[in-house]
Each structure stands twice: as structure tokens, then as C-alpha cells.
């Protein structure tokens, strides 16, 4: 069982590595969105500092959505997804493997790039450290929650916008807790509580989301 899990993660990582655009384009998108804010609102450091946590996190949400669509798409198109559903391994486990691979390809690069963008937004050191913590806990949460939405829309021809409509409301708690934690850290306030909440949500999503996604995949394939 563990073998199947590892094999699937490796396969997905290999595929992503071969199609470089798949993970690089969302990353570029992430950088561009953040760049637009100083241009559109104000380059003033005091303004940027207030906006920074929100801007970076919203960019993470949008860039994440951008790459989310590809989580099951190619497997659906070439029939690999049906084989996974038919395989003797439990589907939630395979879903978890897909989500992990997706996070490694989309969440992790954003986590690595975020400090750079945070510097561009003139965020102080404490804020950047906190931003990394929230991203570490928050981005897997986004991948997990998002996987339900992708599984529901994967069979549809134009699922892209629909996916956004379904998933974004579910992302709101993550956005609230993360940006609040980062803002608190910037202001020098205690922020353990927010991070605890995020962790609790992550545990909840980790236990429930794979089952919902598996069910949704079965529906989409039927």
C-alpha cells in the first residue's frame, strides 16, 4: 500500500518535472499578481507593509487555483484516473498521494518564493518568518480542500471558472487566519492561536478531504 503511494507520488513528480510549464507558470503568475499591487495602489512603504500579508496570501490562493485544475485533468483525459479507481488500493490513499505531489509541485515553490516577494513588499523579518509558517501549514490545506472541487469539476468541459466559484468560499478561513497571524507578527503581537487554528484545520482536512475527493471522483467518472 505504501509502495503504491510512493509510486504514484514519484510518477506525478516526474511528469511535472518533464512538463516544466505546469509548475513554473503558476509561480510566474504568483509573482506577477504581487507586482501589480504596488503599481496599482501605492509604492509607499507604509502602505505596502499593511497590505503585504493580504496581498501575498491572495496571490497564493489565486496561483494555487490556477494550478489546481491540472491535479486530475491529464489523468482524466488519458484514462489513468479510471484505472486508479479500479485498482485494489483504497482510493482515498491514492488521492492523498496526488494531493501530496500537487503540493510539492505548486505549494512548495510558492513557499520558497514568498520571502523574496515579501522583501519587495518591505515586510519586516518577523513577518517573513511568520509568513513562511502560515504558508507551510496553509498551502497543504489549500491543496486538500481544493482537491474536492477539482474532483467535482474534472468531467466538465469548462470547469475552470466553476472550480474557482466552488473553492474560493472554502478558502476564506485559511485566508483569515493566515493573514491575521502575519499581521500580528508584524505588529509584534502574540500569534500562536491563529497558527494553532490553521493546524487544527489541516488535521481536519487531512482526515476528511481525501474521502470526499474519492467520492467526488467516483461521481465524476460514473
Amino acid at each position: 500500500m505504501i509502495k503504491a503511494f510512493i509510486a504514484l507520488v514519484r510518477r506525478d513528480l516526474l511528469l511535472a518535472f518533464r512538463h516544466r510549464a505546469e509548475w513554473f507558470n503558476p509561480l510566474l503568475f504568483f509573482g506577477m499578481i504581487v507586482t501589480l499591487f504596488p503599481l496599482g495602489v501605492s509604492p509607499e512603504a507604509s502602505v505596502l507593509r499593511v497590505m503585504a500579508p493580504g496581498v501575498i496570501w491572495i496571490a497564493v490562493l489565486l496561483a494555487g487555483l490556477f494550478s489546481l485544475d491540472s491535479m486530475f485533468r491529464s489523468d482524466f483525459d488519458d484514462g489513468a484516473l479510471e484505472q486508479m479507481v479500479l485498482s485494489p488500493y483504497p482510493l482515498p490513499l491514492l488521492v492523498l498521494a496526488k494531493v501530496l505531489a500537487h503540493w510539492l509541485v505548486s505549494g512548495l515553490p510558492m513557499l520558497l518564493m514568498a520571502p523574496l516577494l515579501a522583501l519587495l513588499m518591505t515586510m519586516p523579518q518577523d513577518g517573513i518568518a511568520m509568513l513562511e509558517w502560515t504558508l507551510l501549514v496553509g498551502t497543504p490545506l489549500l491543496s486538500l480542500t481544493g482537491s474536492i472541487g477539482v474532483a467535482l469539476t474534472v468531467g466538465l468541459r469548462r470547469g475552470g471558472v466553476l472550480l474557482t466559484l466552488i473553492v474560493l468560499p472554502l478558502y476564506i478561513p485559511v485566508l483569515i487566519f493566515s493573514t491575521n497571524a502575519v499581521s500580528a507578527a508584524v505588529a509584534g503581537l502574540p500569534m500562536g492561536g491563529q497558527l494553532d487554528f490553521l493546524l487544527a484545520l489541516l488535521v481536519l482536512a487531512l482526515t476528511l478531504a481525501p474521502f470526499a475527493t474519492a467520492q467526488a471522483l467516483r461521481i465524476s467518472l460514473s
Partner: protein
Amino acid sequence: MWNAIWVFFHKWASPRYFYRLSGAVIPWLWALTLLLLLGGLYLGLFVAPPDYQQGQSYRIIFVHVPSAWMSLFIYTFMAVLSGIYLIWNIKLADVMVRSSAMLGASFTFLALATGSLWGKPMWGAWWVWDARLTSELILLFLYLGYLALVNAIEDTRTAARAGGVLILVGVVNIPIIHYSVEWWNTLHQGATVTKLDKPSIHVSMLIPLLLMAGAFQLYYFSLVLMRARVELLEREWRSEWVREMMGRGSDG
């Protein structure tokens, strides 16, 4: 014993019986709705005294609060029915969910619109990013997301099952969203009716409020039954019982 209940349940949930039963119930529901609505409006608009702080404009709560309650009730109701549909595969449950969604979205919109009208004189702004307003807005998005999903899927059965999963995911998320938003910002006045010790609302205002809530509830049930009947006919028009009924109708 169990068996008898099961048989009764199945019989009642079969489209044919449902169609007949709902046809008989709807006129009564409408009559009751009208009665409660007139009573509630009369007591609320003419009998209840003006509020000592908010004057006359508080009277909008007689529409605002019941629609906010309905927006939550309908989502919960839809979640329960979706569960029933996904577990026992009872078609009627999905028909009801489908017919409820638009009504739920409308009540949510009504709650937002009346809240905004009330907010202008009270808070001095049409819209305030207050916790309850915001979570109500998110609830509207959840309703619309459900509608967008089920309308995008052509096959009725797939749409029903996918929609059901989405509703259940939503219902797990609603408390999380609500409390995170609450914690994020709050300005709205606290609950005045459901406080456990003693409601902080005067009886002369409470009675019309409850009457209106009852009226809204019955209004929803009458409408949802009517919509469900149409939806059923649309889905089952090829089946034996519809032809039989229609045939008899055109003959007589």
C-alpha cells in the same frame, strides 16, 4: 415495526404519491401562510411600539430576521436531504434539494438587502464589513456555487450526486467560516431572541417576529413543494404515472 416504517417511507417518497399528497397539501399551506403573514404584518407594523433607540426603522427586522433564519434553515435542510439522497438514493430528496437552492439564495439575498437598508440609517453606511453580514454574503456564494455546479452538469443523476457532495462539504465548512469571520471582525448587535436565560426583546415585538418567521417558513414549504412538483414532472414525463394522470386529465 421497522419494516412498516420503511414501507411507509418508500411509498410516501415515491414520485407518484408525493405528487398527489403535495397537490392536496399546497392550498392549505398557502392559506396558513397568508394568515400568519397578515397577522404578523399587522402586529409588527401597527401594534408593536416604536423602539426607544431605533424609532420606526427597527421594523425591518420583521422581514430581515426571518429571511436570515430561512437562509440558514434551507441550507441545513438541503444538507440533510443530500445526505438522504447519497445514502439511500431516494430521488425525491434530490428533487427537493434542487428546488430549494434558488429559494435559499433568494432568502439570503433578501436578508442582505434588508440588512443593508437597515444599516444605512443605523450605522451610516450601506455596507459594513461586519462578521455576520460577511458570513451571510459567503453563504450566498455557497448557494450560487451549488447552482453553478448542478447547472453545468448535464446528466441529472451525476449533477444530483456531485451537488450533494458539495452541499455536505459546505455544511462542514459553514461553522468554520462563520467562526473565523466572527473572530475576524464583529459589529453586529448580539442575538436577542435565542439567548437562553431571557430574550432581550419585548413580547410585543417578539410575537410578530415569530409570526413572520412562521409565515416565511410556510411560504418556503408551499413554494418548494410547487417547484418540486414541476421538477418531478419534468424529470418523469416519460413514466407511466405521469402519462396516466395527464391522459385522464385531457379526457375529463
